């Protein structure tokens, strides 16, 4: 089995560390052995830490000339057999979009940690934001799926970075850790594990590297230097990698499989937590750092007797629509606080079976305070 439980190779136990530091150590734990990146606030500490950690773990590190070069080098390294990643923030993520589409289309496993800041454009470079939810899913052209996890703690910066590598390697897709500045720079106590469960890419000699008999399959993942004479291209290709740019059936089959292979695995990818939803008349839907404030507000509201619950998305992509529908089957309303103007609220609305969905968007470069969410709860109930 490609899954195995291995020592992390980094210190275990009670630690006091930042989210960005935890992500860097988690990358090592997950088996990442290549990083290429470009400095950008507020993600740079991930690169700083990996510039030390990777050489110590027989990995390679390079600071590239820009983010386009960074993500391209990551894709090249992945085909050389290394688990590979980069970290960035909004402007860098925008520059990476063409190559992210290339990684989708060539089924190149890689991980991007996006430590979000307040955009658009240069925006508030040092302040928190959450406006990249749609960018990671729809930023490149064409129809595709990715995997994205939203950590709400330093502990999850660690665990979800490992999970992002596992998802990327298992599905051969770009996987994102969609963090926020507040979590990347948050220092808190964590208990890091001594072992983690990791997935190593599945190479099945003799199988075509770019197609499967199943319409939702993940092909064998070879690497350069194995004597496979690989033919990797971002043009439409058949199972062996030959360009077939004028064949409508090849293109249709390929694009649909790349989408299906992710969506068919939604059950294992979709992670969420529910708090007090059984008797709730209002469910606060939150993710990432905002979920910390939301849980505080929900607890305060319940202490005051309000029937409020909470749904926290850990997985943002693929979107876990089914849990929203399940909750919406009861007589509830939804409140969606987020550090953007309703990106996930719109998704919740679409899954809410017509229930009332209130968006609480905040885009001032600050985290959303529990009091703001509590006030919104009181305004609805």
């Amino acid at each position, binding site marked *: 089995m490609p899954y195995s439980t291995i020592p992390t190779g980094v210190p275990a136990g009670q630690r006091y560390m930042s989210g960005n530091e935890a992500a860097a150590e988690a990358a090592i734990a997950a088996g990442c052995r290549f990083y290429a990146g470009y400095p950008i606030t507020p993600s740079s500490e991930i690169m700083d830490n990996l510039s030390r950690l990777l050489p110590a773990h027989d990995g*390679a590190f*390079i600071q*590239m000339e820009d983010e386009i070069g960074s993500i*391209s080098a990551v894709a*090249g*390294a992945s085909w050389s057999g290394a688990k590979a990643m980069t970290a960035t923030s909004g402007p860098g993520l925008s520059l990476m979009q*063409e190559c992210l589409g290339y990684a989708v289309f060539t089924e190149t496993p890689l991980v991007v940690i996006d430590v979000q800041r307040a955009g658009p454009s240069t925006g508030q470079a040092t302040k928190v934001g959450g406006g990249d939810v749609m960018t990671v899913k729809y930023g490149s052209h064409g129809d595709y799926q990715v995997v994205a996890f939203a950590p709400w703690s330093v502990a999850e910066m660690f665990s979800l970075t490992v999970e992002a590598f596992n998802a990327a390697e298992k599905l051969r897709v770009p996987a994102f850790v969609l963090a926020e500045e507040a979590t990347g720079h948050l220092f808190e106590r964590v208990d890091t594990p001594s072992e983690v469960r990791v997935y190593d890419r599945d190479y099945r000699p003799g199988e075509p590297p770019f197609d499967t008999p199943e319409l939702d399959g993940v092909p064998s993942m070879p690497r*350069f230097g194995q004597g496979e004479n690989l033919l*990797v291209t971002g043009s439409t290709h058949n199972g062996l990698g030959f360009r077939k740019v004028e064949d409508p059936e090849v293109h249709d089959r390929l694009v649909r499989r790349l989408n299906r292979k992710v969506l068919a695995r939604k059950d294992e990818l979709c992670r969420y937590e529910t708090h007090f939803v059984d008797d709730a008349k209002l469910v606060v839907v939150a993710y990432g750092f905002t979920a910390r404030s939301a849980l505080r507000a929900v607890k305060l509201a319940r202490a005051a007797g309000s029937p409020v619950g909470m749904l926290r998305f850990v997985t943002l992509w693929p979107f876990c629509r089914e849990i929203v529908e399940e909750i919406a089957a009861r007589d509830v309303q939804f409140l969606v606080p987020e550090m953007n103007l309703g990106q996930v609220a719109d998704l919740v609305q679409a899954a809410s079976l017509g229930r009332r969905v209130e968006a609480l968007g905040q885009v001032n470069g600050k985290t959303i305070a529990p009091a703001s969410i509590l006030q919104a709860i009181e305004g609805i109930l």
Partner: protein
Amino acid sequence: MVRALDHHLRPEVKATPFCPGCGHGILLGLILRKIDALEWDIGEMLFVSGIGCAAWIPSPNYLADTLHTLHGRAVAFATGAKLANPALKVMVISGDGDLASIGGNHLIHAARRGIDLTVVCANNQIYGMTGGQVAPTTPKGSRTATTADGNPYPPFDLCKLVKAAGATYVARGSVLRPRQLMDEIGKALTTPSFSFVEVLSPCPTQYGRRNRLDTPAAAMDEIRDHCRVRVEAGEAGSCAADMLLLGEYGDG
């Protein structure tokens, strides 16, 4: 194609994709001949290319690992592939627009770092695949799809650029001088650091037909007439402004 080199080509490939009179097919064969002469196992090499006519020289033709990447990004992909597996012999083959315009920044930074890559730039002085637009290598005054009255800007001297950026081995050759070019490719491949070979290659279809050079022979004559090797260029080692100096670009 030279039948003796068939074992380096994918059996599924039956013909080159290039236009009549294009020089890229010659370059495709010369690179294979040199690899064969060096007795390298092509199956242990990785060929990386970008987007454009020249990017189709290795992909899908060469029976080796080939990585056909994005427009301009071949050198960056190659950098990652080489660093993650230093045992790979990595050669980038792409065009002038790809390497020197959209990908120019990656090219000079790779040269600066001295990473062990060999970059072959097939320079046809035009954007061929997209219909003959002006390139950063198009001679001043040449007519293209986007410079109907003649290119108002001077071209890059790619060899000087890459040498100044720090490349260890730099040379310019032409498909009209195959022995010299193969010698340069061989030296580039065996240089254990960043090496760069610019190869002038005729494009009668897009460059030639707009510049009264629309037969393969006329397009080749143009390159022959505008290139000089060092011994022909006089003791100063320089030549007229519209001439390109062939040969190795050493220090100083």
